[in-house]
């Protein structure tokens, strides 16, 4: 297959939610070291609640919208608006599609990135989830531009997400709660960059498995 049927992608989003819930303690521990320790708990609460409301047979856009609504309407924090807008704009990008091919998936990534940029105002290097998201989208684009297929682009995105996440370890935070720490914020992964990597990697993995199958 070269495309993922839109219908039935609810199961995929349930996998993403499960990955977040599983990593709840770790994400909060990272946030405890340079922030206020709530990142994993709130992420898990939001994704866990959304998973209960997403049906396995749902379309991807419907699943993304459910997730977005829970995050924006019930979770709040920083992640409610940031991931909430990301998933909502992603949903708009795939709405109505029969199947999601490499191009549609790429448009979805860009829409998500624009959604985050519109509400936050961070940049690459500020030690935020953008340090994962921006290079991941770029790597995905580049792989396609170099003639790769959907699966190759997903592999490239995964690698970039992990590199992007790891790049935050040596950064000094310039935005958000960790920014007052100055040099003391160095040495710890950014929690948002870490959860963003988890989301992208699980998503890529789930799509790739479905393309294979």
């Amino acid at each position, binding site marked *: 297959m070269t495309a993922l049927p839109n219908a039935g992608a609810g199961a995929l989003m349930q996998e993403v939610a499960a990955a977040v819930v599983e990593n709840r303690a770790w994400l909060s521990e990272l946030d405890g070291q340079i922030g*206020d320790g*709530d990142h994993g*708990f709130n992420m898990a609460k939001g994704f866990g609640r959304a998973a209960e409301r997403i049906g396995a047979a749902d379309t991807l856009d419907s699943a993304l919208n459910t997730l977005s609504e829970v995050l*924006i*309407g019930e979770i*709040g924090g920083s992640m*409610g*608006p940031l991931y909430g807008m990301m998933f909502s704009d992603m949903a708009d990008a795939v709405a109505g599609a029969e199947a999601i091919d490499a191009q549609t998936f790429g448009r979805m990534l860009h829409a998500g990135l624009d959604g985050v940029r519109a509400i*936050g105002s961070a940049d690459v290097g500020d030690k935020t989830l953008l340090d994962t998201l921006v290079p991941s989208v770029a790597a995905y684009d580049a792989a396609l531009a170099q003639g790769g297929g959907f699966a190759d682009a997903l592999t490239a995105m995964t690698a970039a997400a992990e590199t992007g996440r790891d790049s935050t370890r040596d950064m000094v935070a310039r935005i958000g709660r960790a920014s007052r720490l100055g040099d003391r914020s160095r040495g710890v992964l950014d929690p948002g960059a870490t959860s963003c990597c988890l989301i992208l990697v699980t998503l890529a993995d789930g799509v790739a498995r479905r393309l294979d199958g």
Partner: protein
Amino acid sequence: MQRFINDPDDIVDETVRGFVRAHADRVRLSPDNPRVVVAAGAPVQGKVGVVTGGGSGHEPAFLGYTGKNMVDAVSIGELFSSPTGKSFHDAIRAADGGAGVAVLYGNYAGDNMNVNLARKMAAKDGIEVATVIANDDVSSAPFAERDKRRGVAGEIFMWKIGGAKAASGASLEEVRATAQKAIDNCRSVGVGLSPCTLPAAGKPNFQIEPGKMEMGIGHHGEPGVKIEDLKPANAIADEMVEMVLADHGLPAGTEVAVLVSGLGATPVNELYVLYDRMADRIEAAGLTVHRGYVGNYFTSLEMMGATLTVMALDAELKELLAMPTDVPGFA
């Protein structure tokens, strides 16, 4: 963890339920949103509405300042997390008496984003919204980057002044400007002596070694700017006053209000010990303490520690400070 917890996921809902029940004479729950608490008499037609909101775990902040002559509606987030845009929006709607709503909140990434979302929603309802963003924490960014500083216990004064101004019949712009003046006139600093524990984590977020203290600690246990040896109370008080006044740069003769808030677990008598010395130092710097506030006004779960807030006063602020309030958190 020696705490009163059922399921950590339920603690905020249970808190709000207990709060509304205990203070039914002064507040009620929004019929639209279980995370919005509204003053008993609100909205008052023709009065500017005053709204705030923020993460839980700082009780009596934020919800404890809801009531007569202070906050009309408050939106409530998870522990240490901003409320949703929807909750801010519902609070705005509950506070709206047709004269606009002032949202007076603290400078945190999440709150900024969620208030912005709420503002857009309120615009669709035709409600005029003004915002004031508290940034009184001197140790959260240098003076040159005041817009990055976070709001801490100075928010109490911002709400007190903004609420009183609104109660006096002022316009939205007047309420905004006066609340802005209040917070511009505030400087705060916090010191942490022990960490706090989010119930879901079951262990402290961060560590403060016995015998050490964190100067400049945040209200969520965000690490301070300086780790020092734990000193006698007077030496700590001196250092806190120094940090606040150095940033404030007030001319001699200025009258000030001084608020010393515990972070949760510090015994109240020790806050008075700090206050006594702080008042000495503030007066030694040529300022006049017009009024003092000492207690657990803005806490961080069971953290040991305290914050100092100094607000410079003028005739208007003194008058507004003196207006009686009837809210659960303000003695």
